[in-house]
Each structure stands twice: as structure tokens, then as C-alpha cells.
């Protein structure tokens, strides 16, 4: 068997059932793969972990990958299967906040984890929404403080993923209608989000394993979409401490809000639209002042995807 | 030196070993041990250091305590000094239970434990920092009057110029003298001296005897002196108590009232030599297993 080490985007959560279903049903095994799956500590953090060789495969943020590839082209991993293809990036404010549009951020204090995807894309948002980033105060905070600091008024808005914030808020007892979201997608930032990324080394040395992995994963995705309950259950067997009902909700919301882009009906889940990817790269390069502009081919390699016919075209 | 001092020896009966304290009429008990027993440790490693010891010392008296090694002399001193509690029985100082009395005590330990982080001067000055009435004046006077007082005392015992040194920079005998200074510096009313001259050569020792005698004659503190030197006991004390081997009791108690000031020549007179000879014999008896009761 080929041994593969994979790192997740975060601690065990419902949507990761995609991977565990594939593992539990022996899809990896059937491809001759022995996959170890470790928890991660952030979608962006998965990128250097794969780049450095600590892991062969990661479930990480495509935008972080673009930034990394711009800075260190030789080491950068490559995305091979995009799972979350809608931009989940948002700034959440209290429902009664005077902030209505990005323009209102000026002079206010926003907070977010330093490696949060939305925070890192904030300069890009500033550009496309034509506001002056320099007039916004940024406070860094641990992700688990985000919603509470918002509700206590210690910051005026917080960066994050819509679903993450929504579920966190729910878990701390904040109702959905107490929070309003200013989504990046509404301001011309149609970016991709989390993808399966693999190291260049693995691609070079064992392309078949990558293909096999994606085949197996794709089956896992399809099974999970059919039976989300079983999918979350396979996460729960690994960590009985998670709350299955909440994670099931999270699974559904992830599928609806983060994976369900209109383009998948056309190209299937996992693949990308090269034009859209190109736009994303340009936005990022300009916003973050990156040293160079990676080509879409550097970022995403469709060569390992299962046949387009096998990719899910409809998620629910 | 004047010779021919009158050496008068009065043998007194030791207090009954049953433990019933019969206070000698002339003693008004500035220090009093009443059926005091001291045991160290716990069973089965219990050590009986003192057993039902009685001792009364009049105010202003000068008492020497002699006895074989390990008999409990230091134990008695520590108890009177308030460092040790009796396992049973009572210890009174100035009519009150030990610890509660408003008496200035000066103690020179068998081992001259000086605080290593302080200079000799600061070590000697410590009682002035702690004991009223000096305590209140310490901040003001420690650089002036008190310092002079300490320097004078150090000079008297031959340690002039050693005030700035630290304890480990002194020889054994020098440390012992510094320790004596610490015991004397605050003009104590009760002096407890545990072999204060043990590590000194004969001549230095005799000089300090004379200083001690003078101090006693002028300030009249009550003194309890532990010593192994019977000449020293005879020269300095008015009364000599002999202790038995452990568990210690007082087996002989004799008044020795040669006139003061005494001098060294006296110690070579036949009567004096006879007395020390007698004490020697008592100690030898005391060393034997059966406690010798005179």
C-alpha cells in the first residue's frame, strides 16, 4: 500500500465526513492507499504543512495557496480538487450596527484571526469596494473569541466564513437575526475556497496515488451527499465528543452555502473554471501586492480528477 | 596580682532526685526550672535529654553548669532561652512562663551561628535591631552610636577591624568571640553562655574571664554559664551545678563565694585546686551509668 498523510483544515467537524466516509468504506484501501488523516489548525495553515513535506495531502484554502505560490513557486503544492467553490468570506456585524456597506468600515475596528481567509483578503475587498483600508483598525484575535467580542461590542465587525460565524454564534446563544453579513461575493470577489492540495513531490513521484485518492474521495463525497447522517457519524466515531446534531446542521449548511456554486452543474464539483480562477489570482495578487502572478496551471491541475461524468453535478 | 583570696566552699545538698522542688530559701528564682523533662524525637527513637530537673537561679547570680558531654547542658540553656519547649514541667523566667517575660536575654551558642549574609558588625548589631528599647532607635542610631558600641565591644575581645568581614572569613576562635559580643551588645539582664571560651587559647580566654567578671560586677546580669573548664567555672561563678549523664539531672549544687574581683592567682591556690578536683570527681561519678546522688 502507498502510505499517504493528510492534514485537515480544522479540528473534527461534520463536513469532514467526506474524507472519513471514503476511509471507512474502504475506498482508499481499494485504490491501494493507506491514508492517515490528521486534524489541522486552519485552512491556510494546511498550505505550508504540505509545502514543507510534513503532509502529502492537505485540505486547505486555495487563496492561501495562491499567495504561497506567488512567494515560493518551487515549493508550492498544487490544488487538484476544489471542494468549497463559493466565496464564504464575510464581515459580520451586529444586526443593529450602522455599518451597512464596506464604506462604513472606515474609522471602525474590525477583528479577525491573523490567518483568517477573510481578513487576508480584506485588502482585496478594499480595492474592489474602493475604500481606504488604512482607515480601518484591525485587531487580531483567536477565532473562538470572534463572535463574543463582536456581541460585547469590543469590535464593530469580525472577519470570517459565513457558516463558521453563523454556527459559532448559534452555539453561544446568539440568534441568526442578531447578526448581519457583508459578503465579499457581493462586492466582486467571486473566489474559490477550500481544495484538496497535494505536494509537488507526490505528483512527481506517484501521480497514480493522487488519481486514486481523488477517485476514492469523490466516491466518499457522493456517498456523503446522499447520506449526510452517516457521514457525520463517521466523524463522530473518531471523536465522540463532537455534537452530532450540530455537526449535521453544519454539514447541510456547508453543502448549501459553500459548495453549491452554479458552475458545478456545468463542470462538476472538484473542477474549476479557469477564467474564474484567473480572476481570483489577479484579485489576490493586486490586493496583497504579491511579487508575481502565478498562472492558473500552477495553482490547479485538473489532470488527476476522475472523469467529468463521475463528478457530482448536483449537491442536493 | 593579689594573692591569698579567701576561697570558701560551701557544699549544698543537691535537690532531691524525686523531683520535689525545695527552693533554697535565699533563692528568689529569677530563673526556675520545675520538674522539667525534655525528650527529643518520637518513640521508638525517643531520647530523654532531661528528666524532672529542678533548678532555681536568683536574680543577679552567676551560675556555672558543668557535666559530661551530652548530658543536657545546652538543652537547659535553650529552654531558658525560649528556643526549646519542655516536654513536661515548667520553665519560668522573671516569674513568668518563658517566652512571655519582658527580659532582655543574651545568648552565646555553643556553635557561633552567625548569619552568613551579614557582616560581623551587622551580626553583632542584630540584638539592637530587635530588642526594645534599642529597637525603636535602631534606624536613627545604627550608623552612629550603635556602631560605635559594637566597634568598642569588638575591640575589647580583640576583633578590632574585623567588623566588615563576613563570618566565614574569621577563625573559629574569632567567631566565638564575635558571638559573645552579640550576646552582650544589648546589655542583657539574663546571660546564657554555652561554652563561650571553648575555642580560645588560654591567654585570650583568661582575658575574657576578666572582662566577664567586670561586666558582671558592674551591670549585675543573671548569668548561666555552661563550661567544661572547671577553673573557668571557679573563677567566674558564684555557684556551680554539676549535671549527671543523660538523662540529665542536677546532682550537685555548690556555692563558691570567693570575694570579687577574683584573679588568676587564686586559681592556683590549693583550696581552689581542691575544689576543682572535687568537681572533677563528681563529674566522673556523673558519667557512670548509675546517676550519682551525693
Amino acid at each position, binding site marked *: 500500500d502507498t502510505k499517504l498523510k493528510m492534514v485537515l483544515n480544522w479540528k473534527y467537524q461534520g463536513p469532514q465526513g467526506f474524507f472519513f466516509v471514503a476511509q471507512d468504506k474502504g475506498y482508499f484501501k481499494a485504490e491501494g492507499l493507506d491514508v492517515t488523516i490528521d*486534524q489541522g*489548525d486552519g485552512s491556510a495553515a494546511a498550505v505550508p504543512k504540505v509545502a514543507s513535506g510534513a503532509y502529502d495531502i492537505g485540505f486547505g484554502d486555495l487563496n492561501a495557496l495562491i499567495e504561497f505560490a506567488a512567494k515560493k513557486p518551487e515549493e508550492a503544492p498544487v490544488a487538484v480538487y476544489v471542494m468549497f467553490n463559493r466565496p464564504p468570506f464575510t464581515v459580520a456585524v451586529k444586526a443593529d450596527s450602522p455599518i451597512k456597506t464596506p464604506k462604513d468600515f472606515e474609522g471602525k475596528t474590525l477583528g479577525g484571526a491573523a490567518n483568517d481567509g477573510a481578513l487576508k483578503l480584506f485588502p482585496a475587498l478594499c480595492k474592489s469596494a474602493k475604500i481606504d483600508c488604512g482607515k480601518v483598525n484591525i485587531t487580531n484575535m483567536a477565532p*473562538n473569541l470572534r463572535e*463574543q467580542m463582536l456581541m460585547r461590542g469590543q469590535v464593530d465587525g469580525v472577519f470570517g466564513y459565513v457558516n463558521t460565524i453563523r454556527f459559532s454564534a448559534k452555539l453561544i*446563544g446568539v440568534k441568526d437575526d442578531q447578526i448581519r453579513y457583508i459578503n465579499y461575493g457581493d462586492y466582486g470577489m467571486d473566489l474559490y475556497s477550500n481544495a484538496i492540495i497535494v505536494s509537488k513531490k507526490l505528483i512527481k513521484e506517484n501521480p497514480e496515488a493522487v488519481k486514486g485518492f481523488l477517485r476514492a474521495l469523490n466516491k466518499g463525497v457522493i456517498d456523503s451527499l446522499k447520506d449526510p447522517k452517516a457521514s457525520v457519524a463517521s466523524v463522530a466515531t473518531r471523536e465522540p465528543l463532537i455534537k452530532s446534531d450540530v455537526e449535521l446542521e453544519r454539514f447541510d449548511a456547508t453543502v448549501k452555502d459553500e459548495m453549491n456554486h452554479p458552475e458545478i452543474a456545468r463542470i462538476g464539483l472538484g473542477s474549476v473554471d479557469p477564467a474564474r480562477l484567473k480572476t481570483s489570482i489577479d484579485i489576490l495578487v493586486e490586493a496583497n501586492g504579491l511579487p508575481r502572478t502565478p498562472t492558473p496551471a500552477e495553482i490547479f491541475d485538473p489532470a488527476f480528477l476522475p472523469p467529468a461524468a463521475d463528478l457530482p453535478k448536483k449537491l442536493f | 596580682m593579689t594573692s591569698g583570696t579567701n576561697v570558701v566552699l560551701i557544699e549544698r545538698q543537691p535537690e532531691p532526685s524525686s523531683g520535689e522542688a525545695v527552693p533554697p530559701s535565699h533563692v528568689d528564682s529569677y530563673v526556675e526550672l520545675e520538674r522539667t523533662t525534655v525528650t527529643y524525637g518520637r518513640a521508638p527513637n525517643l531520647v530523654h535529654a532531661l528528666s524532672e530537673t529542678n533548678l532555681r537561679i536568683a536574680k543577679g547570680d552567676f551560675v556555672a553548669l558543668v557535666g559530661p558531654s551530652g548530658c543536657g547542658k545546652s538543652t537547659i540553656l535553650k529552654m531558658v532561652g525560649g528556643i526549646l519547649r519542655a516536654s513536661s514541667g515548667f520553665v519560668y523566667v522573671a516569674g513568668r512562663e518563658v517566652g512571655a517575660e519582658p527580659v532582655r536575654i543574651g545568648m552565646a551558642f555553643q556553635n557561633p551561628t552567625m548569619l552568613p549574609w551579614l557582616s560581623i558588625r551587622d551580626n553583632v548589631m542584630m540584638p539592637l535591631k530587635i530588642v526594645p528599647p534599642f529597637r525603636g532607635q535602631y534606624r536613627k542610631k545604627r550608623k552612629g552610636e550603635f556602631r560605635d558600641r559594637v566597634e568598642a565591644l569588638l575591640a575589647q575581645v580583640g576583633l578590632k577591624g574585623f567588623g566588615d568581614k563576613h563570618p566565614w572569613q574569621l577563625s573559629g576562635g574569632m567567631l566565638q568571640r564575635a558571638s559573645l559580643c552579640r550576646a552582650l551588645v544589648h546589655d542583657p539582664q539574663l546571660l546564657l553562655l554555652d561554652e563561650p571560651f571553648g575555642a580560645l587559647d588560654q591567654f585570650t580566654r583568661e582575658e575574657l574571664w576578666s572582662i566577664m567578671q567586670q561586666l558582671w560586677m558592674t551591670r549585675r546580669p543573671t548569668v548561666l554559664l555552661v563550661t567544661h573548664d572547671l577553673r573557668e567555672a571557679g573563677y567566674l561563678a558564684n555557684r556551680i551545678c554539676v549535671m549527671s549523664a543523660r538523662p540529665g539531672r542536677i546532682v550537685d549544687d555548690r556555692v563558691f563565694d570567693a570575694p570579687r574581683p577574683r584573679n588568676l592567682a587564686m586559681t592556683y591556690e590549693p583550696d581552689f585546686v581542691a575544689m576543682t578536683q572535687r568537681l572533677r570527681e563528681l563529674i566522673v561519678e556523673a558519667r557512670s551509668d548509675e546517676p550519682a546522688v551525693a
Partner: protein
Amino acid sequence: MNSNVNRKIASAVLIVGLFAVWEVLCLAFGVSDTVLPRPSQIFVTLWQRFPALWPHTLQTLYTTMLGFVLGVGIGVLIGVLIGWSKLAYDVAYPLLVGFSSVPKVAVVPIFVLYFGAGTVPAVLTALIMSIFPVVVNVATGLATTEPELEDVMKTLRATKFDILWNVGLPRAMPYFFASLKVAVTLAFVGSVISETVASNRGIGNVMMIASASFDVPLVFAGLFILAALGIILYGVFSLIESRITGWAHRKTEFAMG
């Protein structure tokens, strides 16, 4: 004896009282359990989740103890070396101090990279966190040994190692045990931090998962488990200490234990 029992009771009452105050304050000020859960909630969580928590507890205990034992061993070695050689002192101390001033959380990823997630980085982190207090205290204990105690050995023409073994180390024991108490708590912190960065098991992992799902009572249940483990180990060391350094604790005025 009896006063001893009384004291234990009084102390237990006081500690329980403290928890009661915490409980009451939380209730009085309506503190949300996502900020600071009440002790009663924490204990209920502990009780209910115990079967799920137990394997994580064992894992953390295991990595911590392994790292701690290794760290203490290395710490004693370095401490002795520093006490022994001025050169070692000049070289090792700045490096150690510098390294100790750095949050270990920044170093864990390097371990993970070379050893993978899981047990090894946790053990290593526990190890490196235990070293420094031990080094400092052992070196100080050796350096402050009274020279008089060594003089006997010198007249016997004892080797430096003899002196170290028979005088230096025994004399440094009270320092050593003091450092153990600090080191063991740091070892727990170390392994848990490593577990929060990268691992699939252990209390640190539980706490991350719990905090990701805002199950703050579960986070605190994890903290309580850590605290309990720390206290138990501390108790064990105290027992050993009182056997070994009884000679140093013979005073009664400021009496410990």
C-alpha cells in the same frame, strides 16, 4: 496529629468555598457559560463525558510523564554541567534563557514537520518545557553549596565526581524538588499546547474540539482534568521530597507539609 486533620478539613472547606464563590458570582452576574462556566456545569460535564474523556486523559498523562521524565533527566545533566564548568555556564545559560523566553507554541510546528502529529511532538514539547526550571535550580543548588561541606571530601582526595555525587547533589535536592513542582506543571502545559497544534488525541485536542464547537464547559472540564493531574503528581513529589529532603525541612517556624 489532630490539628493536622483539622487543618486538612479547613483547607478542603476553603477550597470548596472558593468554588462556591465562583458559582455564586457567575450566577449573580449572569456570566454566560460560553465565557466562564460555573463549577457545577463543569463537574456535570466531567461526570457525563468521563468515558469519552478518559482515553484522552491517559494519552496526555502518558506524553506528559514521558516528556517530563526525560526533561528532568536532561535538566539535571545540564544543571550539573553548568554548575561544573564555567564555560558550560557561559554557553548554555544564554541559549537556555533565550530558548525559554520563546513561546513553545512557535516551535511545535517544527517538531510536527519532522515527527508527524501526535505523541512525539507532545513528548518533545513537554520535555523542553521541563528542562529550564530544573537546570536553573540544580545549578543554583550546586553553586550555593557551603564550601565547608566539601572540605571533608577534599582532604580525602575525592574526585570532582565524588564531591558532586556525595555533597553537591544531595545538597541541591531541596532546590531540585522545588523545580520539579514547577517543571511538572510546565510539562502539562507543553504537551497540551502541542496537542492543540497537532494531534488527534489528548486533552489538548479535546479542548480544541470543544472550543471549536463552543462547548466551553467541556473546555473547562479538560482544564480541570489537567489541574487534577498536576495536583496528583505534585502530591507524589511532595511525598518523595519529604522522604528525601527531610533533613532540610527540620525547622518548625515556617513549616511546610
